[in-house]
């Protein structure tokens, strides 16, 4: 019986990583599920759901050849797939400001306190080396409503000196 696995691959970015990994998985009889692949700093990162008709050990062997050839570190976990059950976010938050330690921890702890559940978080360090800025986009759902999240973000802005922007989105189904 086929099982789902989460594959994590990380290494120095270079051309061809995605096509080599996808090719090896295809030739090995895997089906791919949802994925996030992204360059973070100079590294290329892959989080990839893979359906495979075999044991974890066999999948690791299958992928390790291509991972070694592209100098990628590999990690495999057996997972529950839960496809076709996307949770629709209803709030988007942007936080940005001068980069310094603790922004993510403080903001996300505050959000957790008001019942905000993060579905997606992306952040970038931009600006220059001497004046880095931190930019974070978060999407999620608010169990205690928009106003509670907005209030805590206003406090964050004042206390931490970051700019925050919150918008509600009402997904249109048509």
């Amino acid at each position, binding site marked *: 019986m086929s099982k789902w696995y989460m594959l994590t691959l990380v290494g120095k970015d270079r051309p061809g990583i995605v096509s080599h990994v996808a090719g090896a998985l295809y030739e090995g009889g895997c089906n791919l599920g949802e994925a996030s692949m992204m360059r973070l700093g100079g590294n290329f990162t892959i989080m990839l759901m893979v359906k495979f008709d075999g044991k974890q050990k066999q999948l690791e062997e299958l992928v390790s050849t291509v991972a070694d050839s592209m100098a990628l570190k590999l990690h495999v976990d057996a997972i529950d797939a839960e496809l*076709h*059950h*996307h949770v*629709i*976010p209803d709030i988007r938050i*942007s936080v*940005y400001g001068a980069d310094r330690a603790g922004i993510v921890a403080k903001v996300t702890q505050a959000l957790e306190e008001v019942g905000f559940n993060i579905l*997606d978080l*992306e952040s*970038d360090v*931009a*600006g220059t080396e001497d004046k880095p800025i931190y*930019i974070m*986009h978060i*999407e999620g759902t608010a169990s205690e409503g928009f106003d509670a999240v907005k209030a805590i973000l206003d406090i964050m802005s004042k206390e931490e000196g970051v700019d925050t*922007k919150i918008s509600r*989105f*009402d*997904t*249109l*189904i*048509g």
Partner: protein
Amino acid sequence: MPLLPILQYPDERLKQVSQPVEHFDDELRAFIADLEQTMRAGPGGVGIAAPQVGRFQRIAIVDVSSKPNIEHHGRLILINPEITEWDGMKIGREGCMSVPDYTGNVIRAEKIRITARDEFGTSQSYDMHGYEARAVQHEVDHLDGLLFLDRLVSRRNDLFQRKVYK
């Protein structure tokens, strides 16, 4: 009145361009009643277009009145609709009854003027903005064989176009 089965992507027929309605008769009005019931049966559906149920005529229904705190025109029957003016642009999240379990960001005009006939063939004109204008643009796209999947923009970097300005 039966609920009509909804075509789901990758059904090729969703890419077909629909033809104008010529006869405003009882058969048309009976179909519109079924189409409306089908729209209202869908969870959170605020619009539907005839090609989504396999009738390739330029007919759409939009009703965003269930959404709180927005201006709207109530229940709109839009036959042979033409968007004649566009103004502004805004990103918003859309999904579609013909594309289950997926939502994505789409840029739409913020304000539009639309002319259309109602179910009796009378010409109507509406100025609208925001959520209602988005719904109408989504449905008019269906009449031209376009899905919101054809208009997706990246989720990333919608606040900052580029990281480094030189």
